[in-house]
């Protein structure tokens, strides 16, 4: 018990910040334990520098407040400070006009000082004197230089020289000549500045040199150049280059606001690198956009200038006209009108040498030269065929040696053109051998002469399917007066008209070919129901169109085929006539049906 009391008495517990402490009034406790109270509380420094802590006034103030706390004596002791007094400046209202109106909401603001202060150069008393002198000689007030313009000019000089000669203060001998400033004018430079800059330049130069090449407006020394003691101002100078080796300015109290040492950059994370890249790209894009806009601006300005010039010219002309009228001068009308000089057409490359690539527009002249007239082409073709036929005939004559051929393959003389020629005229070579009515029952060897000939003539090899015996053939032909005649096979052929509607033709071919499958081997009775129906259909308008589309693409081939077939038919007709034996079992008299031209049915093509 006593021991514990002693411990309590002599070893106070440490003061913990988590310990619950009773808040009491002084009257509630007696002061017996007081001397021990402070013992185990760590002494806490005031936070004032030790050397200053001993300062007289501070000590006095501390003592005074201590006294106030302990004994209740209130003594207001102040630390003396130098004076601060209100000025009695009558200019004050001019300096700080009462023109601020308080917004009702909290202010949000992000413009910088530079944004808010206009032209960074402010003129001194000396500048004003110079300006007065400069303006005094100028009569028209418009030629005078305003204070604002003057400041802009000076500001221009200062900015440009800072950019181009940041270290002018080291060597002032090579200060920029005026021309360099003039070339630095850009779009934003006002005309007034351009007007006065040259005259102000000598004054600026003098001022700058007087300042030993340093900016005329005093500027902060942010760093010094290491080998020299002179300092360079902040504005627009490129830092990084001089960041190193600035040890020497450490001692210069006027050098301030150094850049902090760059913090250790983390080993580049990918995202960091990416975002840098993105930002860089964004920046270049923005710069492109900016440049483009600048170009647009320039273009528009030029356009405007051109328009203004035009207007001027016009006005001058109007004036001139007026004068001419007044003075009775008969001027040349050419003076009054813009004579547009026609541009000489650019020389075209010779078409024969350079063929434009497919897909490009072809010079019509060039193709005109290239193209062979249709008639000529036809004649050539005809000639070619003629040649072949004649050759064959000659060959055969030679073969026969002057004897008449009595064999089933008679001699052949090429058909003479008919009385009228329309459409394609094809001279066919020897027809297939005439077949007797008996023979007609026998299947023919497909490799007969005719087929040979057909092959020799035709560009395509559809010859095998060209001729099928026992088929009924119908032909349409156009007679005199535009009549359309439908012929049966045995009749003498007329040259085919060229204007056959390929669609119809295809359609009919389709129907026909499907029929053909069925009664391929049968004898065809022209008077049978089927045939009659077929013929009737030939003359009727098309009923269904569903099969058209997929056959359109064949039409070109069909046309060729048609030509060939018609030729074959002509030959066959001829043969039939000469042999006196029709292909049909029972030769029919000519059936010519008259149909109106508009409904002209196509020739059913065969396969």
């Amino acid at each position, binding site marked *: 018990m006593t021991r514990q009391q002693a411990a309590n008495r002599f070893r106070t517990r440490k003061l913990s910040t988590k310990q619950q402490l009773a808040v009491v*009034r002084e009257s509630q406790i007696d002061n017996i334990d007081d001397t021990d109270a402070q013992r185990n509380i760590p002494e806490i420094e005031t*936070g004032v520098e030790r050397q200053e802590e001993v300062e007289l*006034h501070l000590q006095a103030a501390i003592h005074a407040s201590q006294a106030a706390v302990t004994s209740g004596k209130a003594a207001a002791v102040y630390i003396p*400070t*130098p004076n*601060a007094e209100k000025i009695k400046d009558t200019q004050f209202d001019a300096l700080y006009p009462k023109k601020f109106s308080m917004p009702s909401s909290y202010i949000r603001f992000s413009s910088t000082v530079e944004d808010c202060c206009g032209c960074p150069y402010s003129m001194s008393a000396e500048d004003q004197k110079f300006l007065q002198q400069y303006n005094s000689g100028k009569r028209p007030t418009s030629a005078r230089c305003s204070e604002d313009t003057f400041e802009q000019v000076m500001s221009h000089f200062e900015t440009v020289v800072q950019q181009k000669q940041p270290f002018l203060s080291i060597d002032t001998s090579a200060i920029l000549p005026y021309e360099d400033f003039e070339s630095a004018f850009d779009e934003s430079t006002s005309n007034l500045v351009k007007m006065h800059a040259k005259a102000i330049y000598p004054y600026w130069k003098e001022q700058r040199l007087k300042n030993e090449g340093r900016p005329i407006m005093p500027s902060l020394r942010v760093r010094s150049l290491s080998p020299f003691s002179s300092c360079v101002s902040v504005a627009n100078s490129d830092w990084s280059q001089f960041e190193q080796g600035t040890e020497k300015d450490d001692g210069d109290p006027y050098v301030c606001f150094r850049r902090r040492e760059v913090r250790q950059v983390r080993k580049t994370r990918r995202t960091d690198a990416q975002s840098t890249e993105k930002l860089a790209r964004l920046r270049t894009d923005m710069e492109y956009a900016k440049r483009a806009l600048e170009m647009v601006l320039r273009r528009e300005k030029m356009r405007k200038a051109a328009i203004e010039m035009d207007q001027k010219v016009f006005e001058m002309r109007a004036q001139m006209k007026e004068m001419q009228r007044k003075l009775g001068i008969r001027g040349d009308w050419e003076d009054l009108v813009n004579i547009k000089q026609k541009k000489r057409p650019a020389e075209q490359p010779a078409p024969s040498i350079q063929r434009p690539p497919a897909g490009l527009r072809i010079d019509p002249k060039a193709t005109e030269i290239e193209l062979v007239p249709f008639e000529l082409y036809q004649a050539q073709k005809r000639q070619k065929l003629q040649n072949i036929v004649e050759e064959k005939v000659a060959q055969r004559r030679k073969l026969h040696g002057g004897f008449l051929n009595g064999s089933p393959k008679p001699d052949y003389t090429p058909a003479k053109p008919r009385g009228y020629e329309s459409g394609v005229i094809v001279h066919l070579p020897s027809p297939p051998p005439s077949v007797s009515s008996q023979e007609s029952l026998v299947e023919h060897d497909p490799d007969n002469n005719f087929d040979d000939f057909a092959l020799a003539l035709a560009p395509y090899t559809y010859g095998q399917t060209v001729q099928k015996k026992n088929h009924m053939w119908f032909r349409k032909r156009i007679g005199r007066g535009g009549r359309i005649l439908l012929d049966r096979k045995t009749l003498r052929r007329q040259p085919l008209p060229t204007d056959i509607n390929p669609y119809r033709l295809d359609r009919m071919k389709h129907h026909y070919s499907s029929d053909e499958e069925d009664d391929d081997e049968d004898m065809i009775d022209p008077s049978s129901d089927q045939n009659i129906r077929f013929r009737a259909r030939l003359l009727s308008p098309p009923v269904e169109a569903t099969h058209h589309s997929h056959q359109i693409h064949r039409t070109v081939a069909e046309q060729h085929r048609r030509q060939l077939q018609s030729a074959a038919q002509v030959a066959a007709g001829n043969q039939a006539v000469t042999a006196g034996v029709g292909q049909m079992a029972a030769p029919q008299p000519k059936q010519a049906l008259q149909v109106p031209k508009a409904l002209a049915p196509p020739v059913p093509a065969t396969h």
Partner: protein
Amino acid sequence: MTPLGIEEIQSILGLLDVRRLEMSLVFDDELFEVQEGPLVGNLLADLHTGSPGMGRVGLCTVGALRTDTPPACSIGVKLQVFHAGSNEYREAEILSMQTRPTGVHYYVHYTDFNKRLDEWVTLDKLDLTKEVEWPKPPEPPAPPVSSSHRKKDSISKNSKASRPQKHDGDDGHKSDSMDVDDPTPTDDTKLQEPANFSKEKEIEKLRTSGSMTQSAHEISRVRNLSRLQIGLYELEPWYFSPYPPELTSSPILHICEFCLSYFGCPTRFLRHRQKCDLFHPPGNEIYRDQAVSFFEIDGRRQRTWCRNLCLLSKCFLDHKTLYYDVDPFLFYCMCVRDDRGFHLVGYFSKEKESADGYNVACILTLPQYQRTGYGKLLIAFSYELSKREGKLGSPEKPLSDLGLLSYRAYWQDTIVDILLEQKGEVTIDELANMSAMTTNDVIHTLQTLGMIRYYKGQHVICLTDAILAQKEKLKERQRIKGKRVLDPSCLQWKPPVFTAATRTWNW
């Protein structure tokens, strides 16, 4: 020793200007009569050897104080100087001298006075009838080698010296102080060094407080601006501030109250005012009540303005350093309003991210608004922000004398207010959380107020009668004069967040 002829005296006082010669001679003659030979002998000997009795204590003539370059150097001399403010002679050290048209002026620092009371005095304020203390020799006489040694040393000192000041920001003071700790040059001078300008002391300062004035650099020991005009007021600056050196020669430095730009030439200033269309600190207003507004300004976004603010505040803060730029700080500016705009009253800066948990880096009420309760309001606001952040905060050290007093007053007021509300028991942590003060500051306050008592084997917090009485008195005064208080509901503020990229790349 036989009295000297006038030629000899003239040779001793070689640098006297002709106009002042006669007066000086008369003055000197009296001195010689009193002191007879030895002094003059000493002086002559000093002149011949090249050092005017350095490190010694003795009487001095005005002639010896005429030059500011060795051998006969007046800089560093300690002597009695008449201080007009306290109306008495006080010990002072000459920090600089200047020859002006009106005669030679000396810049003196009074011992045990704050540097802000340093001043320029004329020759007649110096008391040469008492003994003076010559500055210690920079180095034992081994001229060429040692002097270069000394120089190097002082450079390295300077380079360290300028940094550890309290700037808005401060990394690695401690490691710096270790670098400086180079014992070799100090060893041989140790014995002869008097107290005034010692390397040892500086190192000691570095060790203990991590902070040191720029005193090592002679230029910055001397106030460089004579007067400031800002808004409606004209101020005397207290300390050196690195405004462009060209401006130090102008009698008044004009400072635009809104953008804080500085102009030596009145015409320039007038022209600037015509162009400047700023009416408030260039940032977001985060607090507004009947009396004041607060603006938050980012040092990175408003570099120029914040630099200007720092230059201005350096005039009144000794421990502020402008060595580094303002980027990592936010500035909270308190303004009063009228129809001319928002007038800056005071501000505090705050690190965007403080490793040491400081909620204030530098804090200043402009002199024209001091002693009117604004300082306390500023401090209160800084703690209000800490409350919003949910953090405990403390001002960065070192505090100035005025700073200490202000903070102590605020702490006392706050703690006592909380305790008066509090019924029953309370822990220090709870007090800290309620006030957003660090526990250290709470204990410190309780301690200086003598409120921690030991009663019946336990610590208790005792609201003493004296404290209660003081509180009553304060209330009475506030009732009459009106109290400046903050209304937390007027604070429209969210703690700013800085992204990783900001921190890494210092964007």
